[in-house]
């Protein structure tokens, strides 16, 4: 059941939107590995290739060079084993909460036998009353809970989170951080989250990957060694936060 994710010297470049055969290098020579039971955060300035890394792990895009592998199998395309939650707009607005959560079963033609499981997940996120509502009737926090449930119902080995809480207000955000941690520790899987919020990274992660831009490279990997539930005002917490902030603002490589 152990899961090991390895990125081996991964680079990705895109055709420049301005044409003329120019290439934009999104990430270069990124290597790291992590395994189940870890909660990894990726932080770095805008445009340093964080989303690109998640999308390569998900199998939505292929690296230009290097390999992404899970348990020694090279990732070649998307799979339910690597679920992903996006910042916004990932729910299908024309499907109800229950239909969104059951989407993967519908696609595999096994909607009927999994109806009870869908109900269970609707209950898990506390949205029984909204099971038949459309996403437009939900608050931002509720929508992200549905997006999480829709992904977790597939029992993914790896949970990819691309700024999942960025669109939420501060209070909802903090309670959602705990909810995500509960779901993650319950499943014991590997979670990889992109965030812009350093506090969030320190609060949630077992390991923080710092990136630097132009082109996107891994700058440092900082293990966070504080037991959960963490206190945001403890000395250790503040020390980690300052270390990451310094790492982000420093120019040296």
């Amino acid at each position: 059941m152990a899961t090991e994710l390895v990125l081996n010297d991964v680079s990705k470049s895109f055709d420049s939107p301005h044409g003329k055969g120019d290439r934009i290098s999104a990430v270069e020579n990124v290597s790291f590995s992590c395994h189940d039971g870890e909660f990894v955060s990726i932080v770095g300035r805008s445009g340093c290739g964080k989303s690109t890394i998640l999308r390569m792990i998900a199998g939505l895009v292929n690296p230009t060079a290097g390999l992404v592998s899970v348990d020694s199998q090279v990732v070649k395309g998307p799979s339910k084993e690597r679920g992903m939650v996006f910042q916004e707009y990932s729910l299908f607005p024309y499907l109800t909460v229950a239909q969104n959560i059951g989407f993967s079963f519908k696609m595999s033609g096994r909607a009927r036998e999994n109806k009870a499981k869908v109900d269970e997940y609707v209950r898990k996120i506390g949205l029984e009353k909204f099971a038949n509502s459309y996403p437009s009737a939900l608050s931002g926090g509720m929508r992200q809970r549905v997006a999480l449930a829709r992904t977790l119902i597939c029992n993914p080995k790896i949970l990819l989170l691309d700024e999942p809480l960025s669109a939420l207000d501060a209070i909802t955000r903090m309670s959602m951080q705990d909810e995500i941690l509960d779901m993650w520790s319950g499943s014991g899987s590997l979670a990889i989250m992109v965030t812009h919020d350093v506090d969030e990274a320190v609060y949630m992660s077992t390991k923080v990957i710092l990136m630097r831009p132009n082109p996107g490279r891994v700058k440092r990997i900082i293990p966070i060694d504080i037991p959960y539930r963490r206190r945001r005002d403890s000395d250790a917490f503040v020390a980690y936060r300052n270390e990451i902030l310094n790492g982000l603002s420093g120019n040296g490589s």
Partner: protein
Amino acid sequence: MIRVFLPLLGYALASIEYFLLPNVRENAFPERYFIVLTAGIVAYSAFALFSFLRKDKGLRLFNRLSYRAPIFCAVYVFLALFDVLTLKTGRLTYPFIPWFNDIINSAVADWPMLLKSTLFSLRLLLVSYVVGALAGVATGVVAGYSKSVRYWIEPVLNVLGPIPPATWIPLSMILAKTLFSGSVFIIALGVWYNVSLSTLIGVMNVKKEHLDSARILGASELQIVFRVVIPSSLPSIFQGLSSGMTSACITLIIAEMIGVEAGLGWYIEWAKAWAMFNRMYVAIITICVLFNLVNFTLKKCKKHFLRWENGN
């Protein structure tokens, strides 16, 4: 609340005017106009009473009805005025502008032909519309997906855009095997143009997150088209369906007037040629009712299929 009774007042006014003032012309079957007036007010009252008695859900309907009551009243006032200007004083000259009972009489006299024409128009409209809409959605989806199809289709849409479909009617009369299929082609062309364009825009604007989520959740390419791309594009597609319907109605009437020897458009031309102006009015009123019904149905469909757009 009192305003809900206004239409009764209008009804009384129209009836009294109709029966008390002397006619300047011979008015056959005078009771028919009165029956129509009465049918209107009976339907209105039944609706009002029914919604009033059904409290909770009915109350909203009742409020809407009483909000619109002055408009219903105005219809009766308009009919009364029109009757004064035509039948009672002859200010508006017969036979170019007949009075209402005369229009009703000619409708009753010619109802089989009228029904035939209405059904013909409705059939031509619906067949063309469905053909054009399906072709439009297909074109829009394929063009939205494939860059090379888009490369070829875009100039076609751009060049066709400013040309009214009716321009091609005479040509289609010459080239098509039957007048019906020729008209279907031209009417469908306008629908196709509108729906292709709006579908293309919708497909191009499908959120990347939706496509990515669907792929991760195990959707096949075909499932992505039918379960993600098309439903996500529905708001845009419906815009094209609405403007396509407008285009179809315009083209339909023109096609019937200049070539197809059937349908309500033809009926108007035919009545005009024989100087049976009252029948012309009948056809015009029928077109008003028919097109409003068709558009009302489309609106209801839109509301149903886009019910997810604003809360629930």
